[in-house]
């Protein structure tokens, strides 16, 4: 199936639904076509090969400043009529959005072309399966007898956004993501290793490297218990991705600012991290999984979040730009999305690399822990940026600048602000992480060394 060739005629038909509206009303719509192949493997075999092709139309109608949104996968003329009728009926009864600024016009900054891989967009089931097989083979050859599990996601999305202010913009994205776990459940306690990668071009995914790295990270000695407490930590890139993603949601989302629970709401313009910390959101970057526009058709751009450690403003969409009186930043999520509860958040994070190798980060730690990644991270107290989660798939004790032994997993309960404020060194190698396997939330980051990180309990393995 080819996304580009399927539905242009119907798309033009729906464009009429935002034109010629009566006075005092306005509308925008999102037409999304997506095609994904997911190959999951576990216990040494491909157990869940998956393909999906979806079309979705999201229509938002504004009756003055009353907003209603409706979506449909039925893109027949009757389906389009129904979605328009439904959005209008919702808008008619909606409470007012008093500061609704109206939809953006086409005179706003134009989107720039972003990197895209046509070959990835049309990858066949057999080619995707072959990539999974290459990861499996590479891992198995380095870790005979181990249990290997993971996933390969490859696909594409084409999005067109139109509104009654004359905006008509499109973007197409391609994304490839893979991750693999190599574990030894037969050991007591069990040990495991992890690796992952993401790129807009499936040909650059490096499956052998991913499989090999996970296998080589499996500890050869039994993990020991360490007492919970505050430790100096070297957080590998996967762990750093969790930290900056929660910082993005808790500190740079507009809803947190509007509703008063943002952990950065009283810290804008102030230093919250060392000057070496530069965090931006930039969906145009080739270092992420790029996209040219957001879900309101606004051009994505490089948006500083932490500039030399200083907190910049929250990102916005149409509704929150009105509520906060701030310009649009190009971070709208679909208005119907369940994640819309969070409001607009930065979704293409890039933490600037430093110049330290992982070995140098470890050498700079007299006593501490090396953490590969976190699991099941959740918010404890949003106002303080306090989160909790577990370490997973490779946690090690560092003594006198050397990794001396694996340790059993620990629970942390720590503020993302404390972690970043305590950053002493930043690694030079960065890696792209895509948590949903669909290119929606991407973090590209290096490892860091942070002065103090609070572990509050330990588990049995």
């Amino acid at each position, binding site marked *: *199936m080819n996304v580009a060739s399927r539905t242009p005629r119907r798309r033009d038909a729906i464009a009429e639904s935002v034109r010629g509206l009566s006075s005092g009303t306005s509308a925008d719509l999102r037409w999304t076509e997506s095609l*994904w192949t*997911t190959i999951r493997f*576990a*216990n*040494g075999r491909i157990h869940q*090969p*998956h*393909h*999906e*092709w*979806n*079309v*979705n139309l999201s229509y938002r109608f504004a009756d003055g400043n009353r907003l*209603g*949104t*409706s*979506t*449909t*996968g*039925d893109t027949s003329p009757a389906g389009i009529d*129904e979605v328009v009728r439904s959005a209008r009926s*919702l808008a008619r*009864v*909606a*409470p007012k959005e008093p500061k609704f600024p109206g939809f953006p016009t086409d005179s706003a900054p134009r989107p720039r072309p972003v990197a895209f891989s046509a070959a990835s967009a049309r990858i*066949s*089931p*057999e080619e995707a*399966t072959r990539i999974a097989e290459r990861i499996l083979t590479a891992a198995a050859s380095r870790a005979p007898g181990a249990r290997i*599990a*993971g*996933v390969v*996601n490859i696909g594409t999305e084409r999005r067109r956004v139109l509104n009654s202010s004359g905006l008509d913009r499109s973007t197409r994205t391609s994304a490839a993501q893979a991750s693999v*776990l190599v*574990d030894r*459940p037969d050991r007591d306690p069990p040990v495991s290793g992890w690796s992952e990668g993401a790129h807009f071009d499936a040909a650059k995914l490096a499956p052998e490297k991913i499989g090999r790295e996970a296998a080589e990270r499996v500890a050869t000695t039994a993990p020991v218990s360490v007492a919970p407490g505050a430790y100096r930590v070297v957080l590998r890139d996967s762990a750093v991705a969790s930290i900056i993603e929660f910082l993005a949601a808790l500190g740079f989302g507009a809803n947190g600012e509007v*509703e*008063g*629970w943002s952990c950065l709401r009283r810290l804008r313009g102030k230093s919250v991290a060392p000057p070496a910390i530069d965090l931006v959101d930039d969906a145009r970057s080739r270092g992420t999984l790029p996209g040219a526009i957001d879900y309101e058709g606004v051009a994505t751009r490089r948006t500083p979040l932490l500039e030399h450690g200083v907190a910049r403003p929250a990102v916005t969409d149409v509704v929150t730009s009105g509520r906060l009186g701030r310009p649009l930043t190009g971070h709208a999520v679909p208005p*119907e999305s369940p994640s*819309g*509860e969070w409001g607009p958040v930065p979704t293409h994070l890039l933490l600037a690399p430093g110049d330290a190798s992982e070995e140098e980060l470890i050498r700079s730690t007299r006593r501490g822990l090396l953490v590969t990644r976190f*699991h099941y991270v959740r918010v*404890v*107290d949003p106002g303080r940026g306090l989160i*909790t*989660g*577990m370490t*997973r798939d490779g946690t090690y004790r560092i003594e006198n600048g050397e990794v001396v032994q694996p340790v059993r*997993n620990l*629970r942390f*309960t720590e503020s993302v602000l404390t972690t970043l404020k305590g950053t002493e060194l930043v690694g030079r190698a960065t890696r792209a992480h895509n948590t*949903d396997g*669909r290119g929606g939330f991407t973090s590209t980051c290096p490892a860091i060394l942070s002065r103090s990180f609070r572990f*509050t*309990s330990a*588990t*049995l*393995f």
Partner: protein
Amino acid sequence: MADELAETALRAATPSGVEYADVRVIRPKRYLHLAVRDGGASALTSSLSSGLGVRVRTRLAWGFAGTSELNPAAARDTARRAVRLARAAGRTTARPLRVTEETGPSRGRYATKLREEPFEVPRDDILELLVDAEKRLHVGPEVKSGAASFQAWDETKEFLSSEGASYAARIVHVGAGVTATAVRGALVQRRSAPNSFGGACHQSGFEFVRGLELDARAASVGKDAVALLDAPVCPTGPTTLVLGSSQLALQVHESVGHATELDRIFGSEAAYAGTSWVSPGAIGSLTYGSDLMNVVADATEPGGLGTFGWDDEGVAAQRVPIVEAGRLVGVLSSRESAAELGLPRSGGTARADGPDRAPLIRMTNVDLLPGDLSMEELLEDVDEGVYMETNRSWSIDDKRLNFQFGTEVGYRISHGELGALVRNPIYAGMTPEFWRSMDAVGDASTWQLWGVPNCGKGQPGQVARVSHGAPVARFRRVAVRGA
């Protein structure tokens, strides 16, 4: 009964070499979400989706494909895509797949019993209810934000398999709730009713939402949020913990439900959601909790989000004992995982969250059964302790052992009575020790069925809608503290 499109897909999905195929046609799935925040509309959304999913099994591998397009060409194309995936996957293994033989094909119809169609209730009536409730949350200037929301789901499905299974189902869920956020300086406190994260959900018509009486609850929710700003932080230390029903329901979800999913136990979810501390050989012998602990997975329970006629493999809904008098006696299973364990039949828990997703083992309604103590009797034996209710945060390790939960409110218990409010309460523990410390279980008057409409699992991600019934219960020497 069989859908013509489903038959078209099924024919295309069963070429030579395919041993089994099933087709699900969703037509339609409706969703309505009305949310009012601070007097404005934070979300007024309706969605209508349809689609078709095809799953095939060769001797060596599964293949799955789904699409939102409902026409014969797309049905055939999707089926062929599933076959190609299964063949490609089959070339990577020599190990044959095994599944349980299900006795008798599933045929019939299932429909939610409801009195008031939620999609026919005028939307301005629902909004009026939400606006009124949200307004009542604002009991003072410290209530910085108020929210009231309503959600309804309505899915109509046809299922057809190459073994002759053929059923139709219509399942309707509704839910609603209110939340107040109070802010003073850096302090942020939330209080919700009847539950956090969207409120209470049931398989029901709109009559369930009317029964929630959001407007009557809202003012006290706002007052609680403000009172929490002045409450002391929850004390630290091992102490007696009494959990309210909704929090205990989530505890069951995280530390019993997920831990007893057979795909996790076998490692099929190892790379993403994780595995389980339960080993395949532990069933029948493992002491999971105290002898007061009795847990069932009941897909036949009225009102549950995990209640249905047949699962997405065509297996009929069942009530499966999981823990009896503290001993693990059962697990959540699918046809493939049940065969791997040597069970005679599947537990009927394979479900997909839409036509473009393959079925996975998902919880149904995993309930902790009530004991025989009233709330007063349960508190009587507590000299010092903490009562916690309404979840605020949750996290557990990838084997479902080490957990930490935060709740919206806590109350000190002193000499058998609930006392002062405490804020930011957290409790933590290890699954077996925690359940073995349960020394009192509330009676049916304390037991409630709670919907959990946001259970994430799988790659690509799926969100299952499940329920848990739980009473109030008491646990000894639990680590509690304030965040």
